[in-house]
């Protein structure tokens, strides 16, 4: 009898322990598993973008199951089929359902129906999960905010600070949250990337969003932590009032970008479209009483991504490229030059610095030499590379403050975020 009692006690203890273990989150950024306010607000969010993420997550799980079944059935029927052929067949099946079927790294890279009919040049590259995960380990400073649901409106807009983003109050980031951020950012990249224009020659077609520039910006500004807000900027893209005005009011030059999202039929614009429609009627304001409009896990993140990437497009296509074309048309076609100058224009140095750098160019400027000269002259471009180094160190579990990190050998492509994107 005593043995039975002992065994059942042990069994109950183990059951209880495993149940408790199931409730304790695994924090991929090294934060304490007790700091779960941000995680809880993420889990509670039911905005359109979050719901779209959950739907895709569910579909992916189903495809993985059926892909596994396909693999299994192939093995049964035709044991001579190579592993390569079987993998190809599984991917083909997933593609038919227009669902993600990638590796772990791009598990939630959105492969949308609206990619069809476009050449590779017209599709944007997307950001890799492992680079986002490493970035989210960074401590970008400032305070962070959670947003809980207002029972009257149903919106997640009751803002509350959880304290400093780093240190003792650093919030636990789970795998699921990393997946969600990757999903949201890549979806925004696809939604905002301009559509090809009819009857326009190939070399004059609008370019897709350069995902490397977006990665560098978000890594530099916030480490992809969408909850940060202070008077220097709000949310994942650290938006400011003039930037929001540029896109959401008739005094700005970028309203057409929001209008395109509001009218879009792209699947990737679900989660952004209704926000664009609403903001065109009623321009959002940034102040410390409404941070949640820009930092909540659902609509806040969606709005911030839309404006952040929209502002990048306006800088690139509305200012940098036209200014370069007048000064040095050969440089306007160089992707690296355009990306570097666009980064300067929305960095701390701003548009005037970018224009001053363009002033140095002329029709005889060699792209390689010119690029080297502007990289030397811009403190922001140097800072971006520093944060990329930090990210790579964190990726390899090297303390960024050590000499090991300072001396880590990194290629130009790594520092330029080329290895943090997946080409179409």
């Amino acid at each position, binding site marked *: 009898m005593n043995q039975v009692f002992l065994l059942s006690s042990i069994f109950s203890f183990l059951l209880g322990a495993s149940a408790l273990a199931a409730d304790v989150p695994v924090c991929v950024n090294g934060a304490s598993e007790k700091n779960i306010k941000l995680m809880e607000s993420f889990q509670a969010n039911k905005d359109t973008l979050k719901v779209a993420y959950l739907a895709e997550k569910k579909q992916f799980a189903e495809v993985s199951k059926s892909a596994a079944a396909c693999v299994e059935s192939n093995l049964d029927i035709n044991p001579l089929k190579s592993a390569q052929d079987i993998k190809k067949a599984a991917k083909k099946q997933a593609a038919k359902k227009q669902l993600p079927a990638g590796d772990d790294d791009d598990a939630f890279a959105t492969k949308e129906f609206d990619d069809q009919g476009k050449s590779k040049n017209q599709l944007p590259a997307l950001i890799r999960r492992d680079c986002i995960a490493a970035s989210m380990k960074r401590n970008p400073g400032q305070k962070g905010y959670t947003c809980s649901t207002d029972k009257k409106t149903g919106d997640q807009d009751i803002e509350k600070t959880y304290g400093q983003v780093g240190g003792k109050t650093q919030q636990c980031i789970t795998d699921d949250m990393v997946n969600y951020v990757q999903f949201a950012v890549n979806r925004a990249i696809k939604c905002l990337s301009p559509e090809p224009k009819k009857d326009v020659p190939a070399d004059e077609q609008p370019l897709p969003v350069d995902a490397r520039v977006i990665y560098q910006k978000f890594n530099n500004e916030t480490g992809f932590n969408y909850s940060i807000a*202070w*008077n*220097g*900027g709000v949310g994942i893209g*650290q938006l*400011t*009032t*003039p*930037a929001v*005005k*540029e896109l959401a*009011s*008739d*005094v*700005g030059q970028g309203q057409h970008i929001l209008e395109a999202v509001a009218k879009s039929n792209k699947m990737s614009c679900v989660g952004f479209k209704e926000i664009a429609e609403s903001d065109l009627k009623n321009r959002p304001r*940034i102040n410390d009483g409404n941070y949640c409009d820009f930092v909540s896990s659902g609509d806040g993140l969606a709005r911030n991504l839309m404006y952040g990437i929209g502002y990048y497009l306006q800088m690139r296509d509305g200012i940098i490229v036209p200014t370069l074309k007048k000064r040095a048309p050969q440089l306007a076609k160089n992707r690296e030059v355009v990306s570097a100058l666009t980064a300067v224009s*929305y*960095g*701390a140095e*701003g*548009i*005037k610095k970018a*224009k*001053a750098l363009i*002033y*140095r160019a002329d029709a005889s400027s060699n792209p390689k030499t010119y690029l080297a*000269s502007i990289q030397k*002259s811009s403190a922001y471009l140097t800072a971006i590379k520093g944060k990329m180094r930090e990210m790579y160190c964190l990726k390899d579990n090297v303390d960024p403050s050590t000499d090991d990190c300072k001396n880590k050998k990194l290629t130009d492509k790594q520092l330029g975020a080329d290895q943090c994107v997946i080409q179409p």
Partner: protein
Amino acid sequence: MRNTTLVLAILLSSHGAYAAPKTAEKLLEEIKVSRESVSKSDFEKIVHELKKVNSSLNETLNDYKKTDPKSESPALEKVLYVVFSMEPAVDLATSKKPTKLACDKAKHKVELEDKGSKPEDTPLSPEAQESLRWIEILCK
């Protein structure tokens, strides 16, 4: 011979042939004086004065081309900031009085290009402030 050379050098330098280009601070002073001279005048006089200011800015840029052909000097960069800040005001200086929307767009452009990505409470630079004052008198 030596005395002749010395006299010629003095004459040439006083003629401004080798004068250093104007600094941003000097330009801003001159722009401010110009604005104050026409602040109570009619629209046409303000436009006329602003076009003179713009010509002076372009002359200064040409002077820098001679001394800094690569256009990399910090002094030139500061002058360029003045030029870029004044552009929205200069663009309003046409034969027709600008609409309210055109004026608001110009003001927004000055602010955006000056502090688009800076903290909310960052003050506008002196050149942005000067440009806004010109826009104010053009749009009154």
